[in-house]
Structures are given as C-alpha cells and as structure tokens.
C-alpha cells in the first residue's frame, strides 16, 4: 500500500480508500433493501406499487446533480428528514455516510432491476413444492427463492459497487468535496480535470479506478460462475 500511496500521493490514496469504503458500505447496506424492494415489485400487488417502482428508478432518469439536490433538500441539515435524523445523531450532510447514501441511491435502480429479473426467472413450481412441505412464505423465500436468485443478487451487487465507484454528480452536490471525508476518486478526478496541465494526475487516478473496478469484476465473475454452478447443482 505504501508503494501505491507513494505513487498516488497522500490525497489521492485517501480518495481511493474513501471510494472503496463508500462503495462497499453503500452496496452492502442497500443490498437487503434492494432484494426486498425487488421482491415486493415482482411478487406483491399493492396500491402504490407503480409509484414505488417509479421512485426506485428516478435516480437513473434524473441528472445526478438533481438527485444530489433532492438529497440535500431531504437529508441535508435543514432537510425534511435531515433535521429529524440529526436529532438522533445520524448526520449525512458533508460526511462520508452521505457519500455512501448518495452512491446507494444512485445504484439502487440497477440493483433492484437485476434482482427482480432473477426473481421473475424462478420457477414458481419449486416454491409451490416448498410450500406443500410446510414452509410459509418467508421460509420459502429464504430457503428456495433466495438461493435461486443469488446470481441476480451478485450481479446487482457488482453493478451497485461499480456504479458507486463511479458516482460523481449526486455525491459532490450532496456532500461536497472534503478531502479525507467526502473526497472520492471521481471528485478527485474532477478537480484535476479543472486544472490545465494536470492530465497526468487524471490519468493516474483513472487508471487506479479502472484497476479496482476490473479487480472487482473479475472477482465477481469468478464468484458468479461458482454461484451459478452451485445453484444449478452442476
């Protein structure tokens, strides 16, 4: 790590570390919500289903800066929830947690869609078989549906992680760019891009992003092959 941080410089390696932390936390924390939302959208019929579906997809449709502003309006210090949460000691604004929130929300539609596609592909006959064996809906979900959709969950997580690593617009708008606290790789790259002649720094940071992402991808490919084999029992 000293080699890398030496080559990168202290600020850039702090940005890398933060990006990794933000992306991992955003992915892991949002995963259960993503799975639940996907399941609800795929299997339940409830009023407001279309609205939930729309909400989930909004971050994809809106320019990231707008999403960032909406986050600011809701989770900022003077925001609708932000104030209430701050009373409880939960602060997002200008904190790395806010970066994770922004990344999670931007990545959420990708995660939900991937999981939902997997849920739709599960053979309902298997779930029916489980229910005749005494499993209630929750157990059917945990013991049959969930294992069978693992490939989709993995894909969702990889997409979310990759998106979180690249997220810029919503993040900088919501939590700004505080070195060591909210300065992720993309915001660092953005800063360097503004300065004439800073191209070598940009290239360095881009390369490090690419390396991390390709590493994560390769890992996920390897994992997903094993998971797919495991699920299919081959």
């Amino acid at each position, binding site marked *: 790590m000293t080699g890398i941080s030496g080559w990168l410089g202290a600020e850039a390696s702090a940005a890398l570390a933060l990006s990794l932390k933000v992306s991992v936390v955003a992915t892991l924390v949002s995963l259960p919500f993503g799975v639940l939302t996907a399941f609800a959208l795929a299997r339940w019929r409830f009023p407001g289903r279309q609205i939930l579906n729309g909400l989930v997809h909004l971050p994809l449709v809106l320019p990231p800066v707008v999403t960032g502003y909406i986050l600011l309006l809701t989770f*900022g210090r003077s925001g609708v929830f932000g104030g209430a949460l701050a009373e409880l000691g939960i602060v997002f604004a200008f904190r790395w947690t806010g970066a994770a929130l922004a990344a999670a929300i931007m990545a959420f539609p990708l995660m939900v869609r991937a999981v939902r596609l997997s849920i739709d592909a599960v053979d309902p006959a298997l779930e029916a078989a489980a229910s005749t064996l005494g499993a209630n809906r929750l157990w059917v979900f945990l013991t049959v549906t969930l294992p069978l959709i693992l490939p989709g969950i993995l894909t969702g997580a990889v997409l979310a992680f990759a998106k979180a690593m690249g997220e810029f617009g919503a993040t900088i708008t919501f939590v*700004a760019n505080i070195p060591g606290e909210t300065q992720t790789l993309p915001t660092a790259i953005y800063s360097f891009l*503004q*300065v004439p002649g800073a191209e070598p720094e940009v290239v360095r940071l881009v390369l490090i992003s690419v390396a991390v992402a390709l590493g994560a991808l390769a890992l996920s490919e390897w994992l997903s092959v094993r998971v797919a084999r495991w699920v299919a029992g081959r």
Partner: protein
Amino acid sequence: DPVRIAAPVSLKGAFDAVVAKIVKDLGVEIVPVYGGTSLLARQILTGAPYDIFISANAAWMDEVADSGRLVPGTRHDLLTNRLVVAGNAPSPERPLDDALTEGQIAMALTDAIPAGIYGKQALLSIGMWDDVEPRVIETADVRAALALVARGEVPLGIVYATDVFAEERVDIVARFDVMSHDPIVYPLAMLTSAGTDALRVMAALSSDEVGELFAAHGFQRAD
C-alpha cells in the same frame, strides 16, 4: 451558420440577456454554449466548432492560446468580478476577520475552480487560510457553494459579488480586497474556426451598451 459562443455557465443569467440584445441589434444568429470553463477549453482543444470563447480565468485562455487556436490580436479581457463572503439573508456586512471566525465556509474547489483558487489566495494573503481550511466545504462549482448558503446548509460561502447580486436569499457579509488575489477577469477571444459573422459579434460584445447590460447584472467591464 450561427455564431457559437462558448461561455462559462456561471455567466448564463447575464449572457442570455446580452445575446438577446446582440441578436436583435445585428440580426445574426447566435448560439451560446454554456459549460465549465475547463470543459469548454478542452473541447476547443479537440476541435469543437465554436467561434468565440469566453473563459472564466486567464489560465484556460492561455492554454487555448498555446494551441494556436486563437485568432491573434482578438484576445482581451471582457469583464471583471469581485470576491465576497456571502451569508444567509439577512446578514449585516462586517469586517472580514470578524465574518470568518466561525462556521463552515462553502467554496468552489480551492485547487481547481477559479472562484476557489482566488478565495484560497485571498485567505492566504490575509493570513486566515490555516484557521479557515478545516471549515471549508468544497463544491463542484461556485453556484453549488452559493446554493448551500442560500439553503442554509452552510452559514458562509466565498463567491462572486455577481452571484449574491442575483440570489435574494443571500447577503454580502464581507468583501475581499481586489489586491489580495489574482485579478478576476473573463478573457474573450475569437477562435480560428470562426465564421464571417464572428467579428461583428466580437465588436458588439465589447460595445458600451453591452457593457451596461453586464453591469446591470453586477459585472464590471475590464479595461
């Protein structure tokens, strides 16, 4: 072909009015293309089809000049601006060192975006940078810093005087001495790819009427 003017997006409010006036006066078609200065400059460096370039600082205009894409002799400074400390309205104006003693301060990126760079220079020159730095919230551009102040997310911001001029929810709390940082100028130049109408538009941009229009939005003419 319309005359395409690449202009910093932070000029948009004033510049839309200027363009409307010139179009009316000259009868030429003008398309303003707004963006971050660095972005516009890089696009020009890769051959963007613009006729006129207005930069938010000298550095990027120099960069474009070095590439040989400027029509020699057409470059000059169009506007200047002033740097101020802004606070959520209503706030009385105070001395600088008093205004900056506490609270977070929103600034555009202090190593990258002109407003942030000027702000850091000014703070350094008055010896307050070390005190202020831990409280700085850096934003992607100066408008984002202004928005944070306007929304009350951050009590103070270092922005251009013109920004405060246009934003009702924000007041000027303190002003930086123009000598405490590099001059804030908006250089203008014609590009080698320019068409025939561009020269007339260049002239119009530097006219007194246009200068007054800019002034109405808080900008000062550079001389």
